[in-house]
C-alpha cells in the first residue's frame, strides 16, 4: 500500500481538547473526502493522529514523531501559540510542513509554517474599525487572558487606538489568569468604566474556558450589547454551544468565517460535516475553515509540484489560491500568511452569528505588525531570492538566521 501520510497534531486530552478535538475531526473529514475524490497524485491519503495532550513539550515530541517516524508529508495542527513555538524548531530542523489554523499574535514567519488563521490585522484591527465607525465607540476596555496572544494583540490595538487619538484614560486594560471563573469584579468594573457618558466597548481576547463564565456574568449583571458591546476574537460557534445566548444577543465577534455565511460552499461544507460527525447539532467554526483552506492549498501545491517534497511544496504553494467558504478565494502570500475576508458578527439567540459587517475585499495577513516599533520595518518573503522571514527594509538585510 502506497499512501501519502498527513499528520494531525491536535490535543485530544487536557485543557485544549475542548477546542482542538473538533479540528482533528475536521481534518479526518477533509482527508476522507479527498480520498473519495481520488486522493493525491494517484495515492490515497492516510491520516496519522497523535495526541499531544495539551502538553507543550509533548507537542515537540509528537511533531518529531510524525516527521521522523511516520514521515508525514504535512502536518495540520496546533492551537495555542506556545505549542506552535514548541514545534517550530522541529519543523525547521526536519524540514516539515505545518499548517497552523488559528488566529494568533503575528510577529512570526517561518519557512516551514503556513499561517491559515488570522494575523492581528485580519481580525483585531478591522473589528475595532467596525466599532469606531458603526457603534461610535470612544472608550475601550481591552480584556484578555494573561498570555502572549492577548498581550500582543492589545499592544497593537493600544498603539492603533492611540494613533487614532484615543486618550490614555479612555483605555482600560485588564488581564485574568487562564480558566478565570469569577468575573463579578471585572464585569462590575467594566460597567463602572462604561458609565462615564461615553460609548464604551469591550475588546475581548479572553481565551477558551474563561469565556463561558464571563458571558454568564455579563448576562446576569445585565450588560447588554446595546449599552456595552463586547467584541471577541476567541469566541466562535463552538464556545457559544455551551451557553444560553439569549441574554447575549448583539455581542460581537470578529472572524474570517462564520457558520452562518450564506454560500453554497459553506452549505456543502456544513452538510459534509454533519454527515461525517453524525450529529446535526454540531457547529462549524473559523479554525475549521482555516484547515479547509490550508488543506486545499496544500493539495493544490503538491499537485502543482508533482511531489510532496517539502522544498518543492514550499516553492509551489506561494500564490496558490483556493476557494474559501465565504464565497471568495484565499491565496497564499509570500509571507506564508493568506488573504481572507474579515467578518464581524453579532451573537444570535440560536448560538449563531449574524454577519453585520465585512471587509469589501480580502485582507492579506501581515506577519509583522505596523504598529509595533521593532517590527514596522520587517517583511517576510519566502520566494527566491529574498527567501527571508524577517527582512528589514530599512537596513536592507535579512535579520536572524531564518533563511
Amino acid at each position, binding site marked *: 500500500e502506497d499512501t501519502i501520510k498527513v499528520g494531525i497534531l491536535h490535543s485530544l486530552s487536557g485543557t485544549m481538547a475542548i477546542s482542538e478535538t473538533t479540528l482533528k475531526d475536521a481534518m479526518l473529514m477533509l482527508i476522507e473526502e479527498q480520498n473519495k475524490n481520488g486522493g493525491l497524485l494517484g495515492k490515497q491519503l492516510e491520516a496519522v493522529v497523535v495526541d499531544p495532550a495539551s502538553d507543550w513539550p509533548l507537542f515537540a515530541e509528537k511533531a518529531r514523531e510524525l516527521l521522523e517516524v511516520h514521515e508525514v508529508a504535512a502536518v495540520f495542527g496546533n492551537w495555542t501559540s506556545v505549542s506552535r513555538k514548541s514545534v517550530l524548531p522541529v519543523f525547521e530542523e526536519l524540514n516539515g510542513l505545518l499548517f497552523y489554523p488559528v488566529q494568533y499574535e503575528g510577529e512570526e514567519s517561518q519557512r516551514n509554517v503556513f499561517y491559515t488563521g488570522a494575523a492581528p490585522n485580519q481580525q483585531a484591527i478591522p473589528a475595532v474599525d467596525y466599532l469606531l465607525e458603526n457603534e461610535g465607540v470612544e472608550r475601550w476596555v481591552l480584556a484578555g487572558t494573561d498570555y502572549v496572544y492577548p498581550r500582543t494583540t492589545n499592544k497593537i490595538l493600544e498603539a492603533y487606538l492611540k494613533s487614532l487619538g484615543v486618550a490614555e484614560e479612555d483605555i482600560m486594560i485588564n488581564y485574568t489568569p487562564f480558566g478565570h471563573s*469569577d468575573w463579578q469584579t471585572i464585569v462590575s468594573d467594566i460597567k463602572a468604566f462604561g458609565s462615564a*457618558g461615553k460609548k464604551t466597548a469591550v475588546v475581548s481576547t479572553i481565551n477558551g474556558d474563561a469565556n463561558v463564565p464571563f458571558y454568564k456574568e455579563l448576562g446576569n449583571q445585565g450588560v447588554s450589547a446595546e449599552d456595552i458591546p463586547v467584541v471577541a476574537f476567541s469566541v466562535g460557534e463552538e464556545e457559544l454551544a*455551551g451557553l444560553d445566548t439569549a441574554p447575549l444577543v448583539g455581542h460581537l465577534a470578529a472572524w474570517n468565517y462564520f457558520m452562518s455565511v450564506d454560500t453554497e460552499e459553506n452549505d456543502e461544507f456544513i452538510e459534509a460535516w454533519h454527515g461525517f460527525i453524525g450529529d446535526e447539532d454540531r457547529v462549524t467554526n473559523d479554525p475549521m475553515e482555516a484547515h479547509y483552506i490550508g488543506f486545499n492549498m496544500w493539495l493544490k501545491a503538491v499537485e502543482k509540484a508533482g511531489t510532496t517534497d517539502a522544498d518543492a511544496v514550499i516553492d509551489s504553494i506561494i500564490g496558490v489560491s483556493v476557494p474559501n467558504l465565504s464565497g471568495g478565494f484565499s491565496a497564499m502570500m509570500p509571507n506564508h500568511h493568506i488573504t481572507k475576508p474579515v467578518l464581524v458578527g453579532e451573537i444570535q439567540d440560536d448560538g449563531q452569528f*449574524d454577519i453585520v459587517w465585512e471587509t469589501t475585499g480580502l485582507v492579506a495577513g501581515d506577519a509583522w505588525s505596523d504598529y509595533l516599533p521593532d517590527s514596522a520595518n520587517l517583511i517576510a518573503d519566502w520566494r527566491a531570492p529574498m527567501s527571508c522571514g524577517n527582512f528589514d527594509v530599512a537596513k536592507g538585510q535579512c535579520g536572524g538566521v531564518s533563511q
Partner: protein
Amino acid sequence: MTRLTSLFAPILMLLALVTALPGAAATLEELMQRLPQGSYDDRAALVMEIAATGDERAVPLLEALGEGDLQELKSDGTLVRVVKEGKTYTAYDPLTGESLGEIGRRDGKKVKVNNGLRRAIRSALGIMTLRHPDPAKRLEAAEAAFKSGDPDQLEALDAALLAESDREVATVLGAARAVAMLNSDATEADQFEAVTTIAAMGNQDALGVLLPLAAGEGPVAEAAADAVADIERSQKVWGLAQNVWYGLSLGSVLMLAAIGLAITFGVMGVINMAHGELIMVGAYTTFVVQEFIRNTMPEMFGWSLLIAAPLAFLTAGAVGVAIERGIVRHLYGRPLETLLATWGVSLILQQTVRSIFGPNNREVGNPDWMSGAFELGQLTITYNRLWILVFSLIVFAGLLALLKRTPMGLQMRAVTQNRAMAADMGIRTGWVDAMTFGLGAGIAGLAGVALSQIDNVSPNLGQSYIVDSFMVVVFGGAGNLWGAFAGAFTLGVANKFLEPVAGAVLAKILVLVFIILFIQKRPRGLFALKGRAVEA
C-alpha cells in the same frame, strides 16, 4: 452634550423630515416594506419614522424586528414575523398578528438588525409604550427614555409623568425627564433641578449622565461636579460592601467545591485526586436532566435544578461508592497510594465524559429564578450567586448536622480514626467507609450542580477546582468542617479585596503567598486541632 446628540441624530433627522413634509407622511405599510433595505443607519432612521406614525401596530412590528423574528419571504418579498415552535416555523402578519400558516426553514430571509438598530428600536418603542397599561412595559419604556436622553421626548415624558401612578415608574420617568432636560436648551434653573433629580439617584447611571456634564463650565457644571463627588464617595463605601459580597459569593463556590473534599480528604484522610471529576459528574448530571426536560417537558425547566440536585448527589455518590469499594478500600493504611490510584480514576472519568459527551462545553441553562440581578442599594446582586450562597450554606449545615448529630456521623469519625478498633466495636467499617466516601462524592456532585450555573460544563471542569479545593481544606485545617467553611470565605473575601487593587492574576498569586505564610503561623490550618489527641 454633542456626544449624546450624536446618539439620537437619526431622531432629529426624522423629526425634521416629518415636520417638513407633513402631508407626505408615508403609511406604516409602506415604511415597513422599506425595512430590509439600506444601511443600518438608514434603517434606524426608518424605525424612527415608523414610530413617528404613532400607529399602534408599529409596536409589534418593531418588537419583532428587534427580536430578529422579522423575515422577508424569498418568494414575494412580504414581511412576516416568524415564530419557531419545535421544528416548525409559523409566519404571522407583523402588524396584525394574524397567522399566515407554516413556512419552510429556508423560505424566509431574516431582516438583519445590529446593536445600533436595536438601540433605535428601543428608543422608538420607549416613546410609544410610555403609556402602556402594563407597568412593567412602562418601566422598560421609561428606562429606554432615560438611556436615549432625547430632549424631544420632554413633552411625552411630562405627560406620562402626570398620568403615572406607579412610584417606581414615576421615579425613572422623572430621571428620564431630567436627562432630556439636560440635553435640551432648558433654563439654567431647570437644568439645576434636573441635576438634583439625577444626583438623587446616586448610582452609576447618574454618574454616566453627570460626568460629561461636570467636565463643562458654569454653575450647572459645578453642581454636577459636586454631585459626582458625592456619588463617588458613596460608591466607595458601597464598593466595600460590593467586595464583601463578591468575596462571600466566591467563598461559597470555593466552599461547595471543597466541602466534599473536607469529608474524603479531611475526615477520611484519602487524597482524592478524582474529587474534581466528581464535581464534573454532578455538572453533567445537571446537563442530562436539563436535556431531558428540554426534550420532553420544557415547561418544567424552572424545576430542572431542583430535580438535578438529588440526582447529582446520587450519581456522584454512586461513583464515589464504586471508587471506594473498588479501589480505595484496599488502600487504607497506605494513604499516599490513594493519590496514585485516584489520579488514575480522574483520568478515566475525564476521558469517559469526553467520550460520551464530547470534548466541548455543554449548555446548562439558568432557570429564570437563577437569572438576572437585583439592586440592593448600590449593590448589584445576581440571583445565581445569591442562590449558590444559600445553597452552600444549606449543604454545609446539613453536613455538619449529619456528622455531629447522627450515629452515622459518629461512626464515620470513629472508623476514620481507627478502623480496626471501630470494627471491634461492632461498626460495619466497610459499609461506613463506602457511605462516607459516597457522601463526600455526593456533595461534590451537588457542587457540580451549582457550578454548572456559573462555569463551563466540560471535561476540564474538575481540574479547574481541584487545586483550589485542596487549598481551602488545608488552609482551614483538614478534618474540620468549620475549617473548610472559614477557609473558603476567608480566601474568597481576601481574593476579592485584592483583585481591584492588584488585578486578577496578581491577586491570585498574593492569595497563594498568603496561604504559604499563614501556614507558617498556623501549621495545621486556621481551625487547627490541638493537644495530645492530634499527635496520638
